[in-house]
């Protein structure tokens, strides 16, 4: 498996608000046997995740998702539902508690099994942690260029910046005025026509509940700037050509259908091409019955189209049931590229320079410019 297969999802007509374009993805048939719910956390989302012995991941974690593959998702209650006594019983006179206790901020593992067939995972952080942990161990061989800290701690501490959806200009409003389609299970978010995020869920009801959660997600620096400085994007208004053909209502209807089909095709090839056409390195996180939770990393090719990290749940046929992506900025792609080349060359700067087609001094300069200064000895 090295590609994302969005089979079963049809592209709907986009809705534009300012510089944000939202493209709905509609499922004919919901994915059976998997439901996703949201779980809210306190402390304004400031969260710390224990990844392993002495490894922590700290970020804004406003919510987690709970995947439920027991097949009883239809009957399960939404988040925040409280069980109370019947109104006519003696206990019913007591008012129901008005508050729900939120989880404390310390999470154990990115993905954690819950009682029953349920798995709690932290959306997007799963993918981001995969990116941050890229060659996290540092140099495997103690070449003389690498500092003692690099050999001892690897790349730790490793940090990347992202923006909360609230601070992406216009995103909140665009999500608010968006009209959810019947059967809609996903959305692609564009800022100034750059793909910012793709979000797919197994069931339309889940989507309706989780649609506002997009504003609490993380977005890359590029998206934040595009939204801030970009001009409003134009609507792709339908055009019916004034042909010489004899017009009738049936012909008009056919022309209208043609408009819809053209847009769906144009979107899948032109807009979402960079997400769907590139190959990814998939890393299995958890297997839950017929479904598998993966996170994936792009090939880190600098200077090309936008590259996305993300996580996905696929069924046994490889069909995407859940997807959430994060667009890397150009600097982040370069960092990933550099780390990959260094690791491929067994952390030998000379070999890495050959692989990159440049000189050793240039590679050293690139390492320093990428923010990995502490990896190198001062005299390297």
């Amino acid at each position: 498996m090295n590609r994302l297969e969005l089979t079963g999802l049809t592209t709907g007509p986009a809705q534009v608000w300012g510089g944000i374009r939202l493209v709905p993805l509609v499922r004919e048939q919901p994915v059976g046997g998997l439901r996703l719910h949201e779980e809210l956390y306190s402390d304004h989302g400031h969260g710390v995740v224990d990844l392993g012995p002495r490894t922590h991941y700290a970020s804004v974690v406003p919510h987690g998702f709970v995947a439920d593959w027991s097949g009883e998702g239809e009957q399960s209650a939404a988040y925040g539902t409280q069980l109370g006594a019947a109104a006519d019983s003696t206990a019913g006179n007591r008012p129901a508690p008005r508050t729900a206790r939120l989880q404390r901020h310390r999470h154990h593992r990115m993905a954690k099994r819950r009682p029953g067939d349920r798995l709690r995972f932290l959306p997007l952080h799963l993918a981001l942690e995969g990116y941050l942990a890229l060659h996290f161990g540092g140099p495997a061989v103690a070449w003389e260029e690498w500092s003692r800290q690099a050999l001892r701690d690897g790349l730790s501490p490793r940090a990347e910046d992202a923006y909360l959806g609230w601070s992406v200009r216009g995103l909140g409003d665009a999500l608010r005025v968006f009209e959810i389609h019947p059967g809609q299970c996903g959305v692609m978010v564009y800022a100034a026509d750059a793909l910012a995020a793709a979000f797919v869920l197994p069931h339309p009801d889940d989507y309706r509940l989780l649609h506002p959660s997009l504003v609490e997600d993380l977005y890359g620096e590029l998206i934040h700037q595009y939204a801030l400085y970009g001009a409003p994007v134009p609507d792709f208004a339908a055009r019916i050509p004034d042909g010489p053909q004899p017009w009738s209502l049936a012909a008009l209807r056919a022309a209208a259908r043609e408009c819809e089909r053209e847009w769906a095709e144009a979107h899948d090839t032109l807009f979402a091409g960079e997400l769907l056409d590139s190959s990814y390195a998939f890393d299995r996180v958890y297997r839950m019955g017929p479904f598998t939770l993966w996170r994936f990393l792009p090939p880190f090719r600098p200077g090309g189209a936008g590259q996305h990290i993300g996580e996905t749940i696929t069924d046994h046929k490889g069909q995407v049931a859940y997807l959430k992506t994060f667009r890397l900025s150009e600097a982040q792609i370069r960092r990933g590229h550099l780390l990959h080349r260094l690791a491929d060359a067994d952390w030998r700067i000379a070999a890495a320079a050959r692989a990159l087609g440049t000189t050793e001094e240039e590679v050293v300069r690139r390492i320093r410019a990428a923010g990995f200064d502490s990896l190198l000895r001062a005299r390297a």
Partner: protein
Amino acid sequence: MTISTGTDSGLVAAEDVLLFVNAAITSTGQREFRSTAYQQQLSLEFLHEYVRVNYRRVYAAALALDINDHNAVLIVRGLLEHAADAGAEEKRTEGRLIAARLARLPPQRVYRLFRALRAARVNNRRTRAIMRDWLAARPDPAHDAVKYRSGLKTAARHVHLRFGGTGEPGGTGDETGDFLFRPGHRTSYRHGLLDAWRRAHYEQGAVEELPFTVAEGFAARRGMKREVFLERMAPRMTRLERLRTLGQRASGDDARPPADVDLTVMPLTRLALYVLSLGFEARSARRAELTDALRTAARRAAGPHAGGWGRVAAVLDDSYSSSGSGEKRRRPLAVALACHFLLEALAAPGAYSPLWTSGRADPLLVRPWGPTPLGIRVLDALDLTPHRLVIVSDGWDNAPPGLAGEVLRVWRTRLDPDRRTAVVHVNPVYDADGFDVRRLAPSVPTAGVRDAEDLPALVEIAGFAEGRTGAAALYAYLDRQVARFVSDDGAGATS
């Protein structure tokens, strides 16, 4: 009064006029689904100033149309604040229009207008005369003194009004003056309402004699139970107060309303708003009653036009955006629902076909949800070859965007060039950025709508937007409206 402009600039002027009328009908300066209250107010303020400076006569004449109260107040204020721009003859016409409009406005709006005039320090002789005439025409000053205490006080101060002047032998006018300006001066009042207000401070029984809004304050202070209080106050409420408190009066959450409430007398759009405020279970449980009330209100609104529109198809927008905003809750959907019943009454019996954008067929159970596939729905409607096609939508056609405009364009140019089908688009939402209601296509006339009851008049106005009738016809229409409005002044005054 005649309104005329040069023929060369006539068309542009006519467009401006229609634009302004659309804005004045729809916008209330409140938050909409897609714009904030501030954006709406800013946009409206500009439009008012633009029309007032460039087409002052039209600006005044707009008072004779079915514009909403918010804009009527803004126009009156604009005319009075900038009196210097008008000549003597103009002022006379304006004065008549203003007086006629004030007589139709709800009193609380007029008192608020007076307060605004006082704050803006507008105190010329004409303003004082208009205010004095309006105050003199109020049926019971004592009632106003109790219900609009600060409003009347401000107005009286502003125009140097003397209460208890000549012609009031009972001396109640004098009492009103004392009530407002010398509280505690008298130990009791001869006028029942004034005395009830005095007694209500220490006697619970007197609270019930007061107008509802005043009594509410006393009831809160006394800690009276809301249900009991509303039950007792029911006979003293106005029509709309009764409708508004229906939900609170019903014992149980969705039980039947009290027997003394007659829904059929309510205005159509208000009734539609009330229906939409009910839950789905309540709506289906009371289906017969609600449908009957809506039909009766629609027949009353249709009046002489009932059954005269032939075969009618309607495309009604129940997309998510028709949920309006927190301030105008479900207003666009209520307008669509009211239009549904009104068109049913206007169409020839059995010749009406409604098409909701969501595809649902039960009008009573509509809910604002989903996208707006207006283009496909318009096609479905045109399939029925109606005489008239009415589109009720906020003009945001998004599935796919712009398809409705294209369909209507091709239909107009290729399939129906001799206009066998009359298409009209009525839009309940003012688009603050465009200074107009949003249009679907240039070939389709668009009119703003606030209350569905005005639909027949709006269709007439929308005819001018089609561009086939000249600007002269529009001005003639305005003249007719002004003459009609001024002649039967006060006839349509509402409670």
